């Protein structure tokens, strides 16, 4: 029994940063209706930035957020403004331009391989002040780094929801995601809103990078692992849905941790795919997806 509860705790902790990573992806989709295939690569950039900050200064990994958050936000903002905007402008009548998938995949290839050229292919790990530390609650173990990850996820998700709900920019983002033409008619600068949404998505990827640094390896293709995981999570939860992304992340985390008690961890990966396909058959719009989004 204890083992199961511990496994559930681990699943929740892992699932929280999965959910956070997926949150960035789902926001971009929710607003711009495009999938950012470079999301994992942005996460990798965030990880490398945090890695070098910790490595060179010895600061707390979360101190790296001061650099990573604005850096990734601006990067995402510029990416959308320079590369994706021309495509969206050229395809005004298309609801989901697939060209964007290709362009972001191009960005993925460029970022991953630039990292490979600059940093080499080896797996790097950095010892931070919270690596390997644990926190005990009764008999159950909470690794500190992951626990901070859970808190970061909650805080980030809360801030994002608050921003979307109560700020003027947030409201214009929601308006543009509901109906971009009507929003434009109301005087909302559609592309500026998109830039901001993309920036937020990239920024969240960067935050996940900082969360991961104390306990995860960093290497140039680390993003691909998270890309595939995020895609599964957002489809599970419903594309564009914020609670869906968080819930999907926790579900995937729980599946991985509980099933790994009974089988090797590579098989748990397979279980995730099976659950994913099952959900797709039973409820194709995902757990929190809306029917109009089919």
């Amino acid at each position, binding site marked *: 029994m204890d083992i199961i509860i511990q496994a559930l705790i681990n699943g929740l902790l892992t699932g929280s940063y999965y959910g956070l990573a997926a949150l960035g992806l789902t926001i971009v989709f929710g607003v711009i209706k495009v999938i950012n295939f470079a999301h994992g690569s942005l996460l990798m950039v965030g990880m490398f930035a945090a890695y070098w900050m910790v490595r060179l200064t010895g600061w707390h990994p979360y101190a790296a957020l001061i650099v990573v958050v604005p850096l990734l936000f601006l990067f995402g903002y510029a990416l959308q403004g320079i590369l994706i905007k021309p495509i969206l402008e050229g395809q005004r009548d298309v609801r989901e331009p697939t060209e964007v*998938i*290709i362009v972001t995949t191009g960005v993925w290839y460029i970022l991953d391989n630039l990292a490979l050229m600059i940093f080499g292919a080896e797996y790097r790990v950095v010892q931070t002040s919270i690596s390997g530390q644990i926190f005990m609650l009764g008999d159950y173990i909470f690794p500190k780094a992951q626990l901070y990850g859970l808190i970061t996820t909650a805080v980030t998700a809360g801030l994002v929801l608050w921003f979307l709900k109560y700020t003027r920019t947030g409201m214009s983002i929601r308006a543009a995601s509901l109906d971009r033409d009507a929003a434009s008619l109301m005087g909302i600068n559609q592309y500026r809103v998109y830039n901001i949404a993309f920036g937020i998505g990239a920024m969240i990827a960067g935050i996940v990078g900082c969360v991961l640094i104390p306990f995860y390896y960093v290497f*140039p293709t680390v993003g691909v692992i998270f890309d595939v995981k995020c895609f599964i999570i*957002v489809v599970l939860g419903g*594309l564009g849905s914020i609670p869906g992304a968080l819930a999907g992340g926790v579900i995937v985390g729980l599946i991985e941790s509980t099933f790994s008690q009974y089988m090797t961890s590579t098989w748990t990966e397979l279980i995730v795919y099976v659950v994913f396909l099952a959900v797709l058959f039973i409820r194709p*719009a995902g757990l929190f997806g809306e029917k109009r989004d089919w």
Partner: protein
Amino acid sequence: MNTGIQKRKTIDTTLKVLLVLFVFTVPLWVTSPTTLQILIFLFLYAYLTTTWNLVGGFAGVLPLGHSAYVGIGAYTSTVLFISYGVSPWIGMWAGGLIAAIVGIIIGIPTLKLRGAYFALSTMAFGEGVRVLVENTMQLGPFNINGPRGICVPLIPGNNIAAFQFLSKVPYYYIILVMLCVVLFITWYISRIRPGYYLAAGGEEPEAAQSLGVNVAKYKVWAMGLSCFLTALGGTFLAQLALYFYPKQILGLDFSFELAFIALIGGRGTIAGPVVGALILRPVSELTRIYLSAVLPGLHLVIFGLVLILVMLYQPKGLVGPLEKLYNWFLNKVSGTEKEVRT
């Protein structure tokens, strides 16, 4: 009829006949097996991309897991050959059938959804198949050897029944014929009624549906046909390489490469995949050979840049501008420039 236009037609036909003659006589004067191997791979990629294009181009969705069907074809025919001595020529049809069934089962729920769901689901499905194969040593009575992959047992000498040849020439002609057949199939589909439905559903699903076209049904059939033909290519790949493993034949990179070739060439066009393979395959081979020793990864950076530039400046693919160039050339040679313009 105007003489200029007649002349233009003659030149056009002559060039096309010469091209066909050229392609079919290559092994007569190219003796280097390496060159032939490169050409065979070029045609194989053109073949696989053409089959991808049936669903990715005409049905207007973006499948990103087609390596799964290449793998199903390769594994089915090879496993049947090893276990029961079934000739790969027969095994390839079994593989195609399994791939078609799997493709239809995956297509039924996903093709009803918006494009993004389809792209992500097919990608996750492809990865799922790879993970499954990598973790399975024994699938029922068949030994599939997990992550280490399988070797096709060697039969000495040229053996037509075993689909094994000492020289590259038979492989060259087999893949060339296969490519011609799928090109014919795509051409034929593009001019029959279901093909029109497919194209209509791909471009404007809502409009097509409101006119009474069962868009999802035609997309599912296209998916089944595409998966079937893709698996046949998988068997060819297995017989050509005689060794394959999950990371290579079922990998994400492979699926993506097929999609990119089609998109850069021109998706939804008949010549697009071939043009894409003609342009991208040499680019990726050459950059890999000459640049990867200097800086590993540089060739993929260039690849990424090419993708972005093509999407920004020629989002419909390179086949359009090339066609324009060819027409300009024809007009120039036959002097019909003015007449065609007016």
